């Protein structure tokens, strides 16, 4: 019996004794090259930036950017699907080297992860709503049910400013389905994606519109660990990011993935290639 008891104690102790160790990363580029793979956190549920094809591969505009970076470093790519809730966590834990996952560049997030500038995309906030809802201005959302997606940066701002009753879903399809099912009068989302959805030719959206003026233009950024931001790794990504703007690569990718070209990218392209 004694041996069983010690066994139990040992097993329980194992759980308690697991100490948190966070890897220190002195030189990320060397680490990536030594590994032969760059590990990147991406979205796999946000069409057309990162989504699945039937073979299980993740594809999309952000994945194309990842491929560019991997090509530059001469390494293979490992994509780790992340969610808004865990992408910064994974990066800081060292599970990923980089995160390109539709991440909005906010002041609060800048304290947690390093945001690469220039940003690779800018979106703004709007809602998708049935024409019958007759929405005219943002204030009309007050106390009405509005569907949204977990972890989206605009949820908080819209809630504070216009006090809708936000119903939050884990992913876009769930929220769209709730909108069609009449569980909410509008779906709070990125404006370029709403345009893409409406222009998609699906009969389901015939009675829907994007009724409000887009607000809160928000830059999207590639994230690196804060320690990497001013280190060679961060600098390399920054240089590549400038190149993408200058060469029109980002505009080209936007077209490829059927995203309505965003004014931000056009402007950046002019600014950077003109000088």
């Amino acid at each position: 019996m004694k041996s069983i008891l010690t066994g139990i104690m040992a097993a329980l102790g194992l759980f308690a004794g697991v100490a948190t160790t966070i890897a220190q990363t002195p030189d990320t580029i060397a680490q990536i090259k030594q590994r032969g793979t760059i590990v990147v956190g991406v979205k796999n549920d946000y069409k057309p930036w990162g989504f699945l094809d039937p073979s299980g591969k993740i594809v999309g505009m952000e994945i194309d950017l990842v491929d560019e970076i991997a090509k530059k470093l001469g390494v293979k790519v490992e994509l780790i699907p992340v969610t808004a809730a865990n992408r910064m966590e994974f990066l800081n834990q060292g599970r990923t080297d980089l995160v390109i996952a539709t991440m909005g560049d906010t002041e609060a997030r800048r304290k947690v992860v390093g945001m690469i500038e220039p940003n690779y995309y800018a979106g703004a906030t709007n809602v998708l709503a049935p024409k019958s809802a007759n929405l005219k201005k943002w204030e009309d959302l007050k106390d009405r049910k509005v569907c949204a997606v977990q972890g989206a940066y605009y949820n908080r701002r819209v809630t504070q400013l216009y006090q809708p009753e936000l119903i939050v879903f884990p992913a876009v399809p769930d929220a769209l389905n709730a909108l069609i099912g009449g569980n909410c009068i509008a779906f709070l989302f990125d404006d370029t994606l709403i345009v893409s959805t409406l222009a998609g030719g699906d009969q389901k959206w015939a009675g829907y519109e994007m009724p409000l003026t887009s607000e809160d233009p928000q830059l999207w950024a590639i994230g690196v660990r804060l320690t990497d931001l001013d280190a060679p790794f961060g600098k390399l990504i920054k240089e590549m990011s400038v190149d993408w703007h200058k060469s029109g690569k980002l505009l080209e990718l936007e077209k490829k993935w059927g995203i309505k070209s965003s004014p931000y990218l056009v402007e950046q392209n002019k600014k950077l290639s003109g000088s």
Partner: protein
Amino acid sequence: MRTLSGTTDLPVLLPRRMPSATEWGAADGARFFGSRTWLFLLLAMSALSVAAQASDAPARAGIVETVWKWMPLISSGFLFNLLVSAASMVLGTALGVLLGLGQISLHPSVRKASWTLTQFFRNAPWLVLLFFAMFLLPFELRIGGLVIPLPAWLKAIIGLSLPVMGNVAEIVRGGIRSIPTGQWESAESLAFSRMQILWQIIIPQAVKRMIPPWMNLYAILTMATTLISVVGIQDAMTLTRGALVAEARTDLYLPLYFMLLLMFFAYCYPIARLTLMLERRFAVNA
């Protein structure tokens, strides 16, 4: 060991009498899949096709076709769910048996500690335990110079095995306690040591009683493995959602989730039938 024939006034759990015991007892195997099951599956299938027809738009790939296209990917995710469930069950059972035995220990401190741990893990929400495992465990363990990576799926297995551990501990404790104390006393009078009584007399009888609830727990665990989709692991649930995003079609919502539901049903229902069969077989006839 069938010492329970006749009546007893000891506080034991009497076998439940099934009204249809004779009907089921003989042809358990043949009735493994009752005709009702097939009826249910048939209904399910027709519901799927009705749903498909109801929202069929021309000019686009049919619903059944699209669901079929994603079937291999989602099935592979489902296999992953099964793998996670099996691994969590093994780990949870191993730990749970220790904890269950700890609860009947003669040392008050071991007994109390085991009891506390059991109650804690048995009465905590599974998803919360999963979150704790995901975010408290590091992504790699450094013991001296040895680096052991802890990938997300491993953490999920540990996270899910915690509630399993608590539940198995109770199953073990309950199973052992359900054996009449007279057995302990008679064995003691025959000079068996405590260890011998436990392993040679009590546990062999108790195991039979533990197996059905243990299998039930396994079926529940299998269904609960979809929880790991919440912490960002690519299981069948996540892949189904991914398929929905990629197709960007709201009419696929129900058919795709329904297919996932059928996969779990097809796996868990036979377990439930088998559990019922074993319960009947192990029932002590009064």
